[in-house]
């Protein structure tokens, strides 16, 4: 690629060290901005269930209390939003994807891809390889507190090594599928995979 033109008169106010170590095009925030396509669903945990599916068949289904009783994982990770903010050292608690598989008696994933289905009809697609081996958690707590509805509560997927839209809010169903299919944002101009380190923001990146 050609070297980008220098912007006349542009001097970084930020010290280089502030963006050193961040994915390209990202900047640091200490806030936790909210982004979603529509209204935040009001979900009561008493009405809430989450399911793991293989195609059309059910592998497991949990109520809130049942889900809370599963083995819990706490992770501290950096998160990267496609709208360019990065937030460091965020602390999440929930059930790891690995543990979900274990709980339903699977020693390995039955298919190569997963579609995450959420309240409000949103979906996002992921390769299974990006969910296993400690890479993903179904998170129910942020910073030690129940996940706020605006941030995806009661439960959201957390796949921190990909752009944050892959960490789908208001998660209800994880469905294994044999072939990749684009989810909601992925069929609306956003990259199918979304690796922040390769700056895969949009179609064709």
């Amino acid at each position, binding site marked *: 690629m050609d070297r980008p*033109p*220098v912007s006349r*008169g542009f*001097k970084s106010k930020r010290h280089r060290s502030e963006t050193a170590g961040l994915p390209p095009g990202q*900047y640091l925030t200490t806030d936790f*901005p909210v982004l979603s396509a529509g*209204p*935040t669903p009001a979900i009561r945990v008493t009405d809430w269930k989450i399911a793991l599916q293989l195609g059309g068949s059910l592998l497991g289904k949990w109520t809130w209390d049942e889900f809370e009783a599963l083995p819990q994982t706490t992770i501290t990770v950096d998160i990267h939003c496609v709208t360019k903010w990065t937030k460091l050292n965020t602390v999440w608690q929930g059930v790891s994807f690995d543990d979900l598989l274990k709980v339903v008696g699977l020693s390995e994933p039955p298919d190569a891809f997963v579609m995450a289905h959420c309240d409000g009809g949103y979906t996002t697609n992921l390769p299974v390889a990006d969910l296993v081996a400690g890479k993903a958690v179904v998170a129910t707590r942020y910073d030690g507190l129940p996940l706020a509805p605006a941030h995806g509560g009661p439960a959201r997927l957390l796949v921190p090594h990909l752009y944050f839209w892959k960490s789908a809010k208001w998660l209800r169903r994880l469905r294994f599928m044999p072939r990749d299919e684009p989810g909601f944002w992925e069929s609306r101009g956003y990259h199918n995979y979304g690796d922040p380190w390769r700056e895969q923001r949009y179609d*064709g990146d």
Partner: protein
Amino acid sequence: MTATDAPLQQHSIDWQTGRVQAIVTETSRVKSIILQPARWSGHWPGQHVDIRLTADDGYQAERSYSIASPPEEQLLTLTVERVEDGEVSPYLLDELRVGDALEFRGPIGRYFIWNQTRGGPICLVAGGTGITPLMAMLRHRKMSRPNIPASLIYSARSLADVVYWDELDTMARGDLNLRLVYTLTREHPSDWNGHLGRVNEVLLAENSFTREQNPTFFICGPAGFVESISSMLVKLGFDPFTVKTERFGPTGA
């Protein structure tokens, strides 16, 4: 959400260098940058571009800005609000000059979009500079199918903070299909006879069409604003799928 949300786009969105043709002061905190793209295949109202600044030491900063101009215009208008302590918006507002080159890519986004082929009614709700993508929709509507019923509910801190006041005023005058409602949240002129305070359910219900008319909502503004308006609309009985939101985060510089 419908299957027809997205016009297809197969090519990658490459960086290009546009030339700044004009800079218009809109309010004390807001300017519009009018840009001549090197190439442009058109856009949908509601889409945005990414701008990338490069310092001479190679440091780069990227931010997204909504397009305010309609697809009918050759030049792109980006309306930019100052973010205190931001690193891109202060440059765009204070440093950028007519004739400068500006690196950008777009158009981006295929969800928060509308054009005349989708028909109406449309109800647009703007908080502050959240008016920008909605203005592209209104400008496009005016130039294509002004008979599509539309309403704009525009919440601003004060009259002086209303962007595009004159143009909106002219647009609404004589257009019986466009309803224009302002509410001022902090300061108002002594002779102001419009609404005051935050957008509430009554204001929304009175200016947003009926459920039977099946309006599509486009809400754009700060996160808290969008959150509150969209919950009110759901409470009023509108289908959440018809409520499209775009949140301008507090850190979007």
